[in-house]
């Protein structure tokens, strides 16, 4: 769901929860154990394994978008309902469910285009 977007991929074989993993004021991954700790997620197409944690992400994507401190898109091997609900409220592009491990298929830093309506992820 969500709009077509193009931008740099930020890739890790790790989970995602806006509450658990992010400093949403600074716009960086803040959980020390996260593989992207310290890296900015703003304007990035996040390519991660799966959703973790609680329900807060359903609100937090909307809140982050209102301040412009938000990922450009979420591209995950699998998502939970919370990510889908959050992407729906925040109008954030999201793709999930691939034939291969998407965190291995997309190089970190690659320019990619996400077209949710067509279920397409293109390496540019």
């Amino acid at each position, binding site marked *: 769901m969500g709009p077509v977007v193009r931008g740099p991929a930020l890739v890790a074989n790790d989970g995602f929860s806006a*509450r658990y993993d992010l400093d949403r004021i600074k716009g960086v991954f803040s959980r020390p154990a996260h593989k992207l700790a310290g890296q900015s997620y703003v304007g990035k197409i996040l390519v991660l394994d*799966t959703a973790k944690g*609680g329900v807060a992400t359903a609100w937090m994507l909307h*809140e982050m978008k209102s301040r412009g401190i938000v990922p450009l898109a979420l591209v995950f091997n*699998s*998502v*939970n*309902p919370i990510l889908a*609900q959050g992407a729906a409220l925040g109008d954030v592009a999201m793709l999930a469910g691939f034939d291969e491990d998407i965190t291995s298929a997309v190089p970190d830093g690659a320019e990619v285009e996400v077209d949710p309506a067509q279920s397409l992820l293109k390496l540019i």
Partner: protein
Amino acid sequence: MKLNDEERDILAGKAGPVPQQALQHQIKVGDFFGAADFVPVTQAHIMADTESLGEAGVQWLEGLAATTEGQHRVRVPTITDPRGTDFAKADWLGQTKGMVDLERRAIAAFEKLGVAMTNTCINYQTIQPPTRNEHTAFGDTGVVIYANSVCGARSNFEGGPSALSAGLTGRTPRYGFHLPEQRRGTLRIQIDYTPTTLNGWGGLGGVIGRLAGNYWAVPVIEGIEGAPRSDQLKHFGASMASFGSIALYHLVGLTPEATKLSDVAASDLPVHRVTRADVEALQKSYHTDDTVDVVVFSAPQLSLYELGDLASLCDGRKFSVPMLAVTSPQVKPDSDRMGYTARIEAAGGSVLSGMCFYQSYAREISEARGWKRLATNSAKLVNILGGYGYRPMLASMEACVDAAVSGKLVRT
């Protein structure tokens, strides 16, 4: 999604713009997950602390609440998860007027929408536990996993906007754990150790959550001895949901859908063994310091029994660091009447109500109060707070109370 006549009318705006917007949101989510249709729900539970909503979320709520056209109140009983503060203790927590004002605005909006401000994440202990096969729209992952697993009810994780939508429309998309086939086990866990402490149950849930790994996994667990108590399964499930995003587990011979293994599991499921050493290793991995700045009992909110146990441990003690015990607005008056609150506060502790520590601007509290090294008996809490800048440590309730006295957490 296939819509019935009533749903087509809602979508066409015949019930007003509020349920129309709610149904549009639900269809987006339902289409994403391939839901065939909607299923009626009997109750909804909304996670909506203002740290999560922010100004944007509160304005969104206020927009809904300002609508007077058509139906603009919830259709089924709809209750709330903890707020972002205990108004009586906000100053002491170092929360700002802006945070408290935002909370008041959110509450006012919810009340206009007909939502009951229960402010609890233990509604299955304090408000009304769901029954087997009852379809609900619950928020708070700890509530969902308890309702699904222990009660045999049917709910997905419903984030705040979706839970509110379900309250407004009286239904939710039929996907995920509303479907019998989704409730079958996907992996078997054999354990050789039944914890006795709440931190042990939380640790076991954390290990299983990490193993199971994602929302669609359903662990089937064998080897539990005896009959676990509600508070033990509360910590077990909340931690499993937190570490693994798990919404349903089965305990063979104990939980309602798993009288025997074959009720929920195929014979060829992968088997994982979990030992006491695994649980202890998880706990030790968080023990990164010996000094504590604060002790917190929260996540989930404490039951009356937990507060009674805590009060007994506080008798005759004098704390050198702050100790917080967080409970629900339903339990707090009983704790007061039973004298538990007074006994905890006589030792220097604080009993807070209607909030949960990690949902209450934990980062800003840390900065305002200088709290970094935090001891708790909640595995869920230690899993969350690292990202908020804390060094959380997991220990038994007894060890945490000792730490509140001495300022030191003894290694076990």
